[in-house]
């Protein structure tokens, strides 16, 4: 076992000016010099100006009670402001005035007491310094021995150490009894849903029209000029009775139109766009914020949360930031009335990655 070393000159801890006998413990690697300085004891008391000069003391007194009176004034002001600055309907300015005046009254009320009390303590109160004696936290040897004796007697009388079967079965029971309570919290999760299934599908299906967010009005291909960015939801989303936000959190899409010559498409996805119009999931593949900052000339798509950047001209691959996967593309086409429709759902789960995603 390692010996704690007092390298350098050392002395029994009892004599050290750094520790009294009752605090003796191993000093470890501390270096305790034998000719260190002694504590010079307390400095002589230095009187304050308010102790010596009666007029200054009177002035300090006046300051203190003035502050307390100002505090009362502040409280009254706050109550008055509450009544004098009502909130008019539709008037934001009235709220601003109410907030400010009630607040300033409360501030005066509080600061008056605060500064008054501190000033009283600093300039008028005459306490000398208190000196408390510290005792070792662990108590004296007698106290510790007494505690040990208590346990020894209790052990003897109960047989706790002796009766190992009783003891071990008790410990087992105590460890296990909270578990049912923990299991009850499983109820926080839905009982009848399959997470991976749900995360892998969205509301988009073959023939679903692309509609404007938030109005739900379907979009014609001819509406979209080069350089546009349309925020899109599936038609029918607004009619959902429940689950609207949950579906929108997967189905939100950004629709952009580039010059076809600038669009660099993978061969198997050339049918997914229409004359330079492309649709991509708006949910960032990093941790799920809406990716919506579209730069129409550079074709960069920036996510404002952690600055992932996707290149729309190159299948939304990641060009900067912590994301990895490109944004999923929604295959689109045009129906016989000219409206943009989805050809199918996304071919991969949208949004942030999850463990089972493969």
């Amino acid at each position, binding site marked *: 076992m390692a010996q*704690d070393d007092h390298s350098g000159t050392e002395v029994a801890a009892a004599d050290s000016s750094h520790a009294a006998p009752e605090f003796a413990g191993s000093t470890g690697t501390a270096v305790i010099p034998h000719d260190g300085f002694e504590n010079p004891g307390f400095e002589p008391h230095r009187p304050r100006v308010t102790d010596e000069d009666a007029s200054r003391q009177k002035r300090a007194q006046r300051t203190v009670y003035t502050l307390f009176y100002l505090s009362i004034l502040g409280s009254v002001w706050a109550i008055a402001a509450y009544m004098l600055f009502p909130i008019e309907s539709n008037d934001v300015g009235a709220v601003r005035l109410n907030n400010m005046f009630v607040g300033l009254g409360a501030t005066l009320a509080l600061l008056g007491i605060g500064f008054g009390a501190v000033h009283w303590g600093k300039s008028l109160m005459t306490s000398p310094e208190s000196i408390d004696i510290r005792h070792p936290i662990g108590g004296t040897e007698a106290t510790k021995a007494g505690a040990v004796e208590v346990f020894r007697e209790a052990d003897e009388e109960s047989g706790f150490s002796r009766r190992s079967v009783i003891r071990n079965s008790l410990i087992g029971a105590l460890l296990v009894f909270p578990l049912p309570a923990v299991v009850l919290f499983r109820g926080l999760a839905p009982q009848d*849903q399959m997470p991976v299934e749900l995360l892998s599908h969205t509301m988009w299906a073959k023939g679903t029209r692309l509609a404007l967010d938030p109005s739900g009005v379907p979009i014609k291909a001819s509406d979209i000029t080069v350089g546009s960015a349309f925020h899109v939801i599936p038609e029918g989303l607004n009619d959902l009775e429940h689950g609207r936000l949950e579906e929108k959190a997967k189905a939100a899409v950004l629709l952009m139109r580039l010059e076809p010559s600038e669009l660099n498409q993978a061969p198997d996805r050339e049918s997914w766009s229409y004359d330079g119009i492309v649709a991509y999931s708006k949910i960032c593949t990093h941790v799920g914020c*809406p990716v919506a900052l579209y730069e129409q000339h550079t074709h960069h798509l920036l996510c404002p949360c952690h600055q992932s950047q996707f290149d729309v001209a190159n299948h939304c691959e990641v060009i900067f930031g912590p994301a990895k996967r490109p944004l999923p593309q929604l295959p689109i086409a045009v129906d016989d009335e000219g409206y943009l429709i989805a050809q199918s759902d996304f071919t991969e789960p949208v949004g942030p990655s999850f463990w089972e995603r493969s």
Partner: protein
Amino acid sequence: MSTTSTRSTALEKRSFTAAASDYINDRTGLAVAIKGLGRKAFPDHWSFLLGEVALFSFIVILVSGTFLTFFFQASMAEVHYDGSYVPLKGVEMSVAMASTLDISFDIRGGLFVRQMHHWAALLFVAAIGLHMLRVFFTGAFRKPREINWVFGFILFILAMAEGFTGYSLPDDLLSGNGLRIIDGMVKGMPIIGTWTSFLLFGGEFPGTDIVGRLYALHILLLPALIVALIAIHVGYVFIHKHTQFAGPGREPTNSVGPPVLPIYAAKAGGFMFIIWGVISLIAALFTINPIWNYGPYDPSPVSAGTQPDWYIGFADGALRLIPPGWEFVWLDRTWSFNILVPLIVIGGFIVTVLLYPFIEAWIKGDKREHHIADRPRNAPTRTAIGAAGVTFYAGLWAAASSDILSTHFSLTIEGVTHFLQAAVIIGPFIAYFITKRVCIALQKKDREIVLHGYESGRIVKLPGGEFIEVHQPLDEYERWRLVSYENYAPLMIRPNARGKITAGQRARAGLSRWFFEDRIAPVTKGELESSHSTHH
């Protein structure tokens, strides 16, 4: 007869206060406490008040929060807003958002209380942070206070959790996107991630449960834990007594300072009202969390400048600094290291901070109680480690505002990100190096002052024509402050009883060398005498 009359007159003469005090004392035994504690000493240094800043802002949070619970409704049922704020009239939103708007626009003083609550929360966590730094840099976590450090750090984490759950309650666009990010991070965790996400939100994101659940955490479970831990934390300070800086008359075996009654009560009580007043002033004049601008949470819109409250910034910044592409599919599963690495690094940082007192104690082997606070310069390695840690944390925190840094300083977000990626790695090393050298230099300067006194500014011409500056020697009180610190030497390795030198011992000696190899010993009496004899 005269006795009875004197006694009856004596009874009439007793004041109401005396009678009332007697009544209460006979039923509570308070006199014992007052006699024992009424003149308890409280060591007096400005940096010892930082914990109180946290405590007093917490009281503001509790009181203002209680007011808010009467008006806030933690339901995600959809409703069409019908209150005073024109640009949201008729908009569909959750009842939680609508009730927060009502507090802000339709209840007099509601906005003021809401702002006090939120500003106090920001101040609460900031004060805890500053207080923790003070405790760290003065070594106030040493025995017997290690456990109190652990409890205090847990309080820091709980305070952040309170803040996060709190600002997510209004279900607005900013905090909703924050929840979205949390959900994305949870989903990225291996094996349990997807299932945990569904557990937390009661199904798919956003679901209709999360605000209610966060509310239960925010007003019931977390405050209860915080109050209990504060009681233990302050109780420990009470039992251990507060540390004090070295000074004349201050021994490791005493505690010196103004007494509780009346001075400390006046100053601390007054300080409490001042903190309340400062929070009130800020809430009266400065907008915080203007949810009416953000609007209700919807998965489609997002605001430029989407950041969490400042105390979550380090985590957001860590996410932003990960380079592209740190995710792959292997064995049919997705491994998201762009999320795992920030979690692991932050977790490691937290665990290191939590265990630091135990690590330092193991290195030093010093088992005595320590009640004299260190001056940071007298523990150079510890201070330098602290500076490195602060630099690392600050780098992550700055990264959370990378887009705002770029707009305000006309930089590119790519440039800011790359700079901070380098800074969080190199910065701590630079900060460590500079801080350690500065500490040692300051110690050397202290030595010089003890040995040779202050430069007095008086120039004297000696008979030989030489000009010297007269140095003013220190009085014994000033000198004590500069010579009374503890000095440690590196551990010397010795074989154990079986003649072996274990790996643990080697590690300990190596760390001990790192900590204490460069050290400046305090001036001793002998040294001072010999320097005087050589000079005069």
